[in-house]
Each structure stands twice: as structure tokens, then as C-alpha cells.
């Protein structure tokens, strides 16, 4: 049983002063906590003095109470101020100790990559979709009828022999020129979708068909036996070659920037008449802006419309087609077709998710 304390104003004032001094010298919140226990805890002079007030004569109680209030407040203020200081210091130390090199390489879930050819085909699709056109696609192993005959390449047409076609074995029949074959090829052009789409959807028709085509060229720096084209076809009343030029210019801008434009040169394709080669004004051409071959185009030949059962006196149309590879090679300064074809991940990863 502790001895009943006697209120000693001077002693308690000194004790508190001593406590405050210790607070001010405290170097950690832990030390501060200990000081608080020592000078304001249950056994402290301050607590004992407060308890001793009860034993004082009534006339002294008030002053003693006042004194104790002041001492407590002084002590509390000092403690609070120092605690804030120390906590800030300690937090700063802790944060400093947690500092890392944020430039360390972090690849926890690395992205793979889209193939730039696949992405650029999506760009083409988006261009046509934005104009309200549809995207269609036909089979890669195709009948000769859709790849050639329906497009006004008759069985004896010189252009048919110029296409370096992959022929397919299979159930044998005679072709229209009397040669034995399956009447089936790996399509040589996405134009094979023209009559398919006309038959499937009817007119008016506004479609684009990006896809794979095949020619018997060995792979080298500029050729590949498997490549990609995008065909576009519009058939409606009142379409003219002026509309063709308008769409081509817009497409050039979409693919090659605001300064790109197109130019037509007379040419020949069995499925268009008039026909034109399509040149692109390419502002970023190596060695200075200039014209580059980009594709072929023209007004749909009446025989193609007839293949789809349409009246060429009522309907006109235009069509164009470009090589997707060529678009990419130009745009990204790719010098060797091998890079586009081989599937080396280092090539595709340069483009990541875009192209």
C-alpha cells in the first residue's frame, strides 16, 4: 500500500518541468512514450499530486487544481508537439528506407504482339466500315469460275495464263478449254469475291474483302507465294469513275497521311473497263516524295455484272484492289519480304499491338 502522498506544489512543478525537458530531448516516439509513462503515468509525480489534492484543505484545493491543470496542459502540449515532430521524422526515415529505383526493368505480364499484316487488314476494314460498307470474304480454295470466268477471264484468255496460278488436284473434270483439271485453284486475287458477294447480297452493294491470295512465285525479297490483298467493290445506280477516284483518295489519306493522294494510269484487267493502274503519291517515300505503284482498279466490266445476273445498262460499279504487303512495305520502310513472311517474333514485336 503506497503511502498517501502529500501535495507539494513545488515538487510537482519541478517534476513536470523535468518531464518537459526530457520530452524535448526525446529522440524517438518510443522514448517519448516512456517519458509519458514516467511523468504522466499512474505512478508519476503529476498523478500522485492530483490524487493528493483531495487531502488538502478546501481553500487550497482550487489553486492546486488550477496548478495541476496548467501542468497537465503544458506537459500535454509539449508531448503532442514533440510526438508530431518525431512521427514525421520517423515516417520520413521509413519512406527513405523504402525508396526503390523505379527505372528497374519490370515485365511481369509482357504483351505479345499482333502481326502487322493482320492489323493493317483491320485498318482497311475500319476504313470501309467507316464509310458504311461491309466486309465480306470468300474461300481461299476457290472455283475457277469465281476466280476467272465470272470475272471475264475466259478459259483461253491470255491474262488467265499470266496469273501464275496454283492449281488444285481433286475430282477431275474438263475445264472450259478442254484441259483436264479440277476447276479449282488457290485464288489468285481477292477479286474472286466480287461475284460471290453480288450473288449473295445483291445490289446496291458496297463491300471490301481483305484476304489471302496465292501465286506460284518463290519467296524472295520482293515476292511471296502467299500474300494478302484487299478488294473493294461498289455496284449501284449512278456510280462513275469519279466516285472511284474519290474513294481511292480517301483511302490513301487513311493509310498514308493527309498529303497522300492517288493517280490513275490506263491499264487492262479483264474484269474492269475502263481499267487503270493506281499510283500513290507517297509523301514519306525514301529519297523524297513521289509516285509509287499501289494497285489496280476500274469500272466493273459489264460481263462481270452479267455473271451476277445484273443489267449493265442499269447498274455501274467500280472495283479496286491493292496488296496489303506492299502497303506495309512502303509505310514502314521494310526492305525484305522475308521479314513479313517468316514470323520472327522480333519483327512483329516492333509493332506490338498496332502497326
Amino acid at each position: 500500500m503506497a503511502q498517501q502522498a502529500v501535495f507539494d506544489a513545488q515538487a510537482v512543478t519541478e517534476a513536470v518541468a523535468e518531464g518537459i525537458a526530457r520530452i524535448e530531448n526525446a529522440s524517438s516516439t518510443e522514448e517519448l512514450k516512456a517519458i509519458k509513462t514516467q511523468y504522466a503515468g499512474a505512478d508519476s509525480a503529476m498523478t500522485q499530486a492530483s490524487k493528493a489534492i483531495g487531502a488538502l484543505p478546501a481553500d487550497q484545493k482550487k489553486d492546486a487544481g488550477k496548478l495541476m491543470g496548467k501542468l497537465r496542459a503544458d506537459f500535454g502540449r509539449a508531448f503532442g508537439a514533440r510526438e508530431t515532430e518525431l512521427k514525421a521524422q520517423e515516417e520520413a526515415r521509413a519512406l527513405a528506407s523504402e525508396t526503390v529505383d523505379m527505372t528497374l526493368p519490370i515485365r511481369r505480364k509482357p504483351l505479345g504482339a499482333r502481326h502487322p499484316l493482320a492489323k493493317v487488314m483491320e485498318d482497311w476494314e475500319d476504313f470501309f466500315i467507316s464509310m458504311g460498307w461491309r466486309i465480306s470474304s470468300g474461300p481461299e480454295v476457290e472455283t475457277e469460275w469465281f476466280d476467272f470466268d465470272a470475272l471475264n477471264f475466259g478459259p483461253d484468255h491470255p491474262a488467265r495464263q499470266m496469273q501464275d496460278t496454283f492449281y488444285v488436284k481433286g475430282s477431275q473434270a474438263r475445264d472450259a478449254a478442254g484441259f483436264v483439271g479440277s476447276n479449282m485453284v488457290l485464288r489468285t486475287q481477292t477479286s474472286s469475291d466480287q461475284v460471290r458477294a453480288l450473288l449473295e447480297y445483291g445490289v446496291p452493294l458496297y463491300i471490301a474483302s481483305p484476304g489471302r491470295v496465292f501465286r506460284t512465285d518463290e519467296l524472295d525479297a520482293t515476292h511471296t507465294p502467299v500474300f494478302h490483298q484487299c478488294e473493294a467493290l461498289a455496284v449501284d445506280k449512278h456510280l462513275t469513275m469519279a466516285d472511284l477516284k474519290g474513294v481511292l483518295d480517301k483511302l490513301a489519306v487513311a493509310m498514308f497521311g493527309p498529303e497522300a493522294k492517288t493517280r490513275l494510269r490506263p491499264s487492262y484487267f479483264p474484269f474492269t473497263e475502263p481499267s487503270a493502274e493506281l499510283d500513290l503519291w507517297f509523301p514519306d517515300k525514301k529519297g523524297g516524295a513521289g509516285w509509287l505503284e499501289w494497285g489496280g482498279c476500274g469500272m466493273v466490266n459489264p460481263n462481270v455484272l452479267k455473271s451476277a445476273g445484273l443489267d449493265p445498262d442499269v447498274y455501274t460499279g467500280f472495283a479496286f484492289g491493292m496488296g496489303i504487303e506492299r502497303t506495309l512495305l512502303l509505310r514502314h520502310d521494310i526492305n525484305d519480304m522475308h521479314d513479313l513472311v517468316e514470323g520472327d517474333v522480333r519483327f512483329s514485336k516492333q509493332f506490338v499491338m498496332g502497326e
Partner: protein
Amino acid sequence: MPMVDIDWLKDHVEVPEDLTYEQLARDLVKVGLEEEEIHASQVTGPIVVGYVVDATPEPQKNGKTINWCHVDVGDEYNEVDENGNKVPRGIVCGAPNMKAGEKVVVTLPGAVLPGDFRIEPRKTYGHISNGMCASERELGLGDSHDGIILLREYGFTPAEYEALKPGDDAMHLLHLDQPLLEINITPDRGYALSYRGVAREYHHSTGAAYVDPVSALDGKTPLAEGLEPGTPTDIEVSIEDDNPIHGVPGCDRYYARAIRGFDPSAKTPNWMRRRLIRAGVRSISLAVDVTNYVMLDLGQPMHAYDMDKLEGPIVVRRAREGEHLVTLDGKDHELSVEDLLITDSPNGERGSRIIGLAGVMGGLYGEVTAETKNILLEAAHFDQVSIARSARRHKTPSEASRRFERGVDTQLQPAAAQMAAELLIRYGNGEASEHPTDVNNVPRRRAIHFKSTEVARVTGLDTDVNRICDILTDIGCGVAGGGNGEFSIMPPSWRPDLNEPCDLVEEIARLVGYDEIPVTVPPAPVEGEVGLTDDQRRKRQVADELAEYGLVEALTYPFVGDEDYRAFAYDADEIKRVSVEIANPLAGDRPFLRRDILPTLAQTVRLNLRRGLENVSLYEIGHVYLWDPQAPAIPALPGGVRPTDEQLAALDAGLPAQPMHVAGILTGNAVETGWLGERRAVDWSDAVEAVRRISDRLGADLTLDQPAPDDVPAQWHPGRMARVLAGQTVVGVVGELHPHVNEALGFPAHSAAFELDLTALFAALDNAPIQARPISTFPPVKQDLAFTVPQSVTAAALEDAIREAAGEVLESIELFDVFTGDQVGEGMKSLAYAVTFRAVDRTLGSEDSETIRKAIIDRAAELGAQLRA
């Protein structure tokens, strides 16, 4: 494709003196004759005229005799002697025709000849030879290497020859400094396979004055018609086509003209040889060179026969079954009944001897030789299709067949023969017959009914009617009518490609200029669906998802062969039976098309690994091709006519199914965080994750079904493969490749893969909008449940059972621990789940959760699962 020589072009059209080949190419491309290449000169100088001052024969030990010569090459190039005087160069020359007094061509040190042959002073036969006297072959002017060029023999007039001075530039003299323009001729422009045609196009492009050479020649041609009946012509000719193709006779005009008393020793003039050689045509003999020259100049393929070897009549007929012909190139051809032949009639046997495959190549018999004194010139017009088929059938495309299959002028034959006759007589003497044979059955062409409004309707060009008339007249059309802007147009005989109004529209548009066509943009179509289809969008989602998952997209060739079948442990015979086979494959070892993507994708993974790359994980979206051996044959149908619905169905019925697949191969480390230190090799779970991501992205709810090891195909690890199901439909496979497959491909062990049939998967998706479930705000009840189950019970089966038993209150279930071992006993495994229950309408009490828990335990017990304490 043809070469254009400005020097030759000048014969028919006025060209500016300073016309460059670059400008010529620009002019021609404007009207549709595209530049293939401008061939630069193969020779650099100095190459000069030299005068042989002396030539001293010096016999050598090796039996040869060389000439030690002094050649005056002019002040600029002559040598300087010890007294500082200019003196002729010393040159060693081994040519037998070298002699003093000749003017020769001297290539001086610094000159470079074809084949990168550099001329330098060199010590030879005891002299310093300070240049070289050149032969034709050395300069790329021809095949002749019998001796050096003697300019005396080079076709100059005496005055021109006299004017040649030592030191004159021989490069220019011999056209050695001239480039050449090679152009592409589109198949509709057969007439442009001639200088006559190219000159006309140059005129169209530039407006330069053009004179059709045929007009003058026609004026000089002897009349073949209107002769006294019974006037004997050069030879009787009979066209007897009993098997026309598409009803078109193989030959509708045969013109023959004799040249008698020809000097077989006559030589081709040098200017002609130079032009032929520059056109890429070998010089053979005057008679042959002249026919080739006329073909290049006018576009009429011709043939020259030794008339004394022929016995009339000439019969143009189809081959009979079993007939053979040895062509000029020495090849023996078995003829088809579709081949059109030129025959003669020895011993009165009509048409019994074959002297040529019409329009393609002559036969060995009947050809002009070094003894031929009497020549019969053939200029005929053959059917395009017949010639194209024969050339294709016998794989003997020739300069003649290239022109015939594109269409030759039907009225050119007399003029061509006239031109050839004039050249033969001028350079080889003789006399041309005044009674040529002309069997002319050329049908009258149909005039084209042409509305001038077609130009605007198709091209948008607002072209004046008079301008339209002028253009059509300028390209050679006969223009009649004109009331109401409607015309009757007779196309020129050299334009078989002009048959329809649209053909005339093109002519007008290209000559007005495509640049003049206005630019408009058609309004967006108002009918039909808008935007990508669901499946097009889904394809993109799958592609993006896999790239985001860390795989790299590849686009591989779809060709496969034995090597791939072996690596992938396919039964080659079995798979070939159901694979599409290419008739003319590029690489003989990969003649088939893939039935799945993995074998072709594997080759690309392999390429990356071989290049030293690690952690290669690739995917591809593309088509596969499923051949049905029972597929019906595909009919041949004509173009320009809509097939019936039955015919269209027959076209598609014969095609293989070509579904779209996605496949992925994962190798190396699935996790590889570098200095962070986390690393984990790929295994089956990474492939399953890819499939799950696709499933989640598409909202497809794909499930896996693991077959018994014995039922796993040989490509896959027997214990690590599952079929992927959309509902009840199998849409793919996933797992680890069989160790043998990984080994054969050089992949790390446990490399994993998947392949899904996207066509089938997309078809299995329902397109209904997702129906949202209400979100409960009541508190959850969470429990952990660990079961011991027999190994044969799959996680999927147990989870399904738990879900079923828990019913609607199950908010989530997560498998957080899987283990096997002594603790759980032989043939057993432990599966521990964290489950969360939550009701939509109330707080679940302890009674509720106890009920649910019991239901789960009972249901799991049916599978042999015991709740672990």
C-alpha cells in the same frame, strides 16, 4: 516484253531530237504502255574509229598468227613517242580479217564492255597492246566472233564511210551508248507489240505526227482480187478446218507471196541486225531476219518457206489423232486434234506433210536454208483461242504465238508481205511475185452502237460529242451517225479488243486523260447491315486477347508435306487422303494444304528457336482446308451469264470446307520476370489459360473434357490433353504436345499448344444479350471445404457437383489447394475450395449455411468424395 528503240520509233512518228528514254517512258505510260525497265547501255567508252596504218603478221610458237598493228585513233587518243609526237597506237590483234587500210572499232584503255570486261594496256606476245580492236560479240552487238568489225562492211554509204575519221566516237556510231525502253503490253493491246502500234500510241499521248506505214505499203501491194479468172497465183492454198473451236475457224486469212531468184548468200544489213539484236532477237539469215523485222515493225508474224521444197496446195487444217511434228527447235510434239497445222501436198497427197504448227512454230521441213533461192512468204491471220491453246498445250510460246493470241490485224497481211518483199529484194535481190495468193474469209465486223452519254455515265467525264468523235477517229475507228449523240462505230482492224461500248468509253477516257475525271465521293449506302459482323468482331477479340496474353501473332504458309506429318505423328496416308493437294506446288515436299494450323505454326516456332530466341509463344488465326474424297467434280461454266441456282450449288459443293481456326504454341518460360526472380516453365496450364481467356473474352463458357489416355491422339501428351467443348460441340484441343513431337520439332519439354475451330465455336455462340443478375447487398457466408476424392474424379466434375448442390446462393467457388500423397492415400487426391454463399433476398443464417453445406457434402459423396476434417 517488247523493247522500244527511239531510233526505230522515228520511222513512223516524229519525235523530238532530244527525246530521252525517261521522257518516252512518261509519254507512253500516260496512254497505258507501262515502263518495265529502262535498260542502260552495257558499254562505256572510250570506243573510237581507228584507221589501221600497218599490220604485221607474226607467227607464234602456238601455231597462231597475230598481227602487230599500228592504229591511228586520232590526236586525242594516239600515243606520244619519245620526241613528243603523236603516233598511232600499238595494238596486238589476232583476228584473221585484220589488215592495213581498214577502218575498225578500237576500245581504248578505260573502256568497259559487256560482262564487265575492262580494257587495259597489257603485255602480250612480246608487245604492249594499248587497246583492242573489237568484234561484234565483244561489243554485245551480235554473235559474230569470226573477226573484228570492219566498218567498210557496216552498211555505210561510200560518202559516210569516207567521212569516218580516226578518233570519231564509235559508241554513238554503233548505238552502243543508247539505252532501251522495255515496256509492258497488256493483253488487250496486241497491236502495241509492234513499232507501228507503239508509234500510234506515242502519237495519242503527245500529238506527234504519225503516219501509218501500212497505208503506203498497201498502195504498192499487187491486187490479189479482181484478177482474170484462171490467173495462176503463187501457190494454191486451201483452208479446211473441220474442227473449229467455239465455231471460229482457226485461220480466216492466208496470204502467200513468192520471192524468186533470191541470193542465198546475201547478208542482213548491219542496221537491221543492230535493231533486231537490240530487240532481243537473234540474227539468223537475211530471209529469217526480214520476217522477224517485219513482225517487230508491223506486228504481223510471218514465216519464210523454201518454195522449192513445197508442193501445193498448202492446206491449213487441224491435226489428226496420232500425228507428230518436229518443230524448228528440234522438239517432237504429239499433236492434238485441236492443233491447227500448215501442210503441203507431196505426190498429190493433199495436206499430207506438216510444215508448221500454225502461228506457233515452223516445222523442220520446208524452212529456208543457206541454199534457198525461191522463198514463199506466209502472212496469215489465225484465231486467238486456237493459237493460245496450241502454245499452251505444247509449252512453246513464241513471238508469233504471243501476237496471234492477243489478236493480229486482219488486214495487215498484204502490207507485211510487201514490206518483207521490198527488204528481201533490196538486200538479197530476186523478184517479188505480182500474183500473191490471198484466201480471205475474214468475217465482217459488227459495228458498235455507241451512245456518247455512256462516257459520262461510266466515267463522270463531261466530254463534248465532237471530241468523242475525234478521239474515236484518231484511234482508227470508222464513225457514222451522230444524231442524238448516237453513233455507229466500226473499230479498226488492228483492235480486236474493241467490241462493246465500254471498250470505247475506255479509249475516250484514257485519251482525254484519267486526270481529267472529276473526284467525288459516293454517299454511304443506306441499305444493308452496318459495321463488322459478330463473327468479324469476335475474330478480332480472339486475336487481341492472345496478343495481350503474351503470344505473338504469326501468319504461316498453309503448305504441308511428309516432314510435317512425321513431326506431328500423323498417319501420312490417312491425312493425305483428306487433304487438298496442289497440282503444281512450289516446293515438292509440301504439296498439301494444312488441315490444322499447328504443323505450319510449329515451323515458325522452330525458325525462331533456331535463331536463338527463347520463350517463343506464337499464335495464328487462319483457314484450314478439309478435302472430302467424295466431293463431286466442279463443273466448268461460262462467264458473262448468271449460273442457275443448281449450277451455283454445284460449284460450292465441290469445294473443300475451309473453317477458320486459331492455334497457339507455347514454349520456354511462361513467367520470366528477370531480376524480380520469378520464373516458371510453360506447361499444359498455360495453354488451358489461353483457351479460358478466349472463352471469357467471347463469353463462350467453353469446357474441357479429358479423354482416357488411350483415346488421346498421338500428337498429344496422353495424360495432358483435353477436348474443348462449346456446349456439346467439340471445338478444339488443348494440352501439352507429346514428348516425341516436342523432340522432333526441337521444342523444350512440356511445350504446350491449343487449336480451336473458330467457325464452329462462333456458330455455337448465342447472340442474345446477356441477362444481368441482381447484385445482392446482403452479407456473404464464406466457408472452406476440402474433399478427398478418387484420382479418376475430375476437378470439373466435383465443381459441377458443388455448384449444383449449392444452387442459386453460391456466389463464388475457388479451388485453392490440390494435393496428393500419403496423407490422402493411394489413388486419391485432395481438392480444397473456398466457397461464398449469398442470398439475393435475405441474410443467410447459420441454419441456412448448414443446410447448404450438407447438400454439398451429400452431392459430393455421390462422386466418392469425402469431406476432410
